[in-house]
């Protein structure tokens, strides 16, 4: 499974934080890869519409997330905005954010 994850917006635009990050399950530990598969399935990712929720009128500084999953010849993208209220999508998002932080630390070390 290959995931492209991008975060945009927020109270400021940081060029370094808004670049898409690729998370390849083959580069993860077996445990993390298994957890990722479980989270994608639990979120019913491939059944979701492309845009999940929309910011309320007048909202500002919210972050937006784009997640693209490629798996077994299929590909699907969804776009989310803060606050993400659906628990399974929250869990998937947290997993991806944790991986991005780990990648960043790895790169910085």
């Amino acid at each position, binding site marked *: 499974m290959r995931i492209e994850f991008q975060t945009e917006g927020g109270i*400021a635009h940081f*060029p370094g934080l808004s670049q898409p990050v690729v998370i390849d399950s083959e580069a993860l530990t077996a445990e993390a890869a298994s957890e990722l598969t479980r989270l994608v399935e639990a979120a019913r990712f491939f059944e979701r519409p492309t845009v999940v929720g929309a*910011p309320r009128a*007048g*909202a*500002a500084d919210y972050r937006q997330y784009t997640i693209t999953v490629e798996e077994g010849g299929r590909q699907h993208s969804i*776009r989310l905005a803060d*606050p*993400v209220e659906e628990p399974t999508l929250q869990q998937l998002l947290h997993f991806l954010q944790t991986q991005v932080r780990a990648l960043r630390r790895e790169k910085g070390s």
Partner: protein
Amino acid sequence: MCQHTSHRQPIFCILPPHIIDALVQRGTPRQRARALRTLAVDNTIRALRSTPRTIVPRGRRRPSMTAAEGQKQRTIYNAHNTETLPGDVVRTEGSPPSGDQAVDEAYDGLGATYDFYSLAYNRNSIDDEGMSMLATVHFNQDYNNAFWNGEQMVFGDGDGELFNRFTISLDVIGHELTHGVTEDEAQLIYFFQPGALNESVSDVFGSLVKQRVLNQTADQADWLIGAGLFAAGVNGVALRSMKAPGTAYDDPVLGKDPQPAHMNDYVRGFADNGGVHINSGIPNHAFYLAAMQIGGFAWEKAGRIWYQTLIDAQLRPSANFQRFASLTLANAEKLFGAGSPEHQAVSQAWNEVGIAVT
């Protein structure tokens, strides 16, 4: 969305939604990125049209039965590191400090912002009718952001690696609350130039809230937005600099501050809702230049001109930089007279950032 010229994306304007969906799912990475942005913009525009506004637009207000003249009403909630809003009430108006730093900073910051609008511009809270000010702290885990959700402010704790807690900067609290004021007044659309104006107005008044608390004149102020937000080790001083846009940070992880200070460097693109936090550097710098030229406390004259512009019925939700600049000049003339030092300072400030107004 194709009727909104400022949002025009020629390819996608002529494509029906199912084709855009197909591009999202089966297009090249570039096509997918553009199609996703189109869908997101489209969705937001529809939300703007269909979501009932919490704040009644100007001109259609009714006298509030609950609004108490000149009394602030603050409620601070704790989300306990979840994404559930608003969370549990942890401090209400008049109650003593909670001992939780984020809770108390939010409470004090909302109080300072309320006092600023009340004393500087005789405005009674977000909607000028005594609207309650609500803020949630400890939102989500390691959350590196603060936002206005259309009804309330939301503050993350930061991850401790890049960012500290988002209540640490008073100007950030003033910035978020001002998004509510803008929503009540001009309702500047959160894309492209109107969105950058929306952001700039929040930076202007956020900075002025801080300047007033510190009792600083224009030349004493740091003109930074979000000073203190970066964690130790980040190479930067703040999120933005109104004095010198583009110089607030230059860090291996965050990248370099992308804000322009002049129209020659205006950034075109779809990232960040069409650069709302990027191109806001231009009107931010114009305000800084006007305030410095006028001198004294910036909220008294330059701030007054910008505030009168924000509440000016001629400022439409789709206003661009040029229109906003012209209205600031008209308001400077109304307040201080044609040819007055203030009028000249505003004209000169906009000209210096590449926006010609006379």
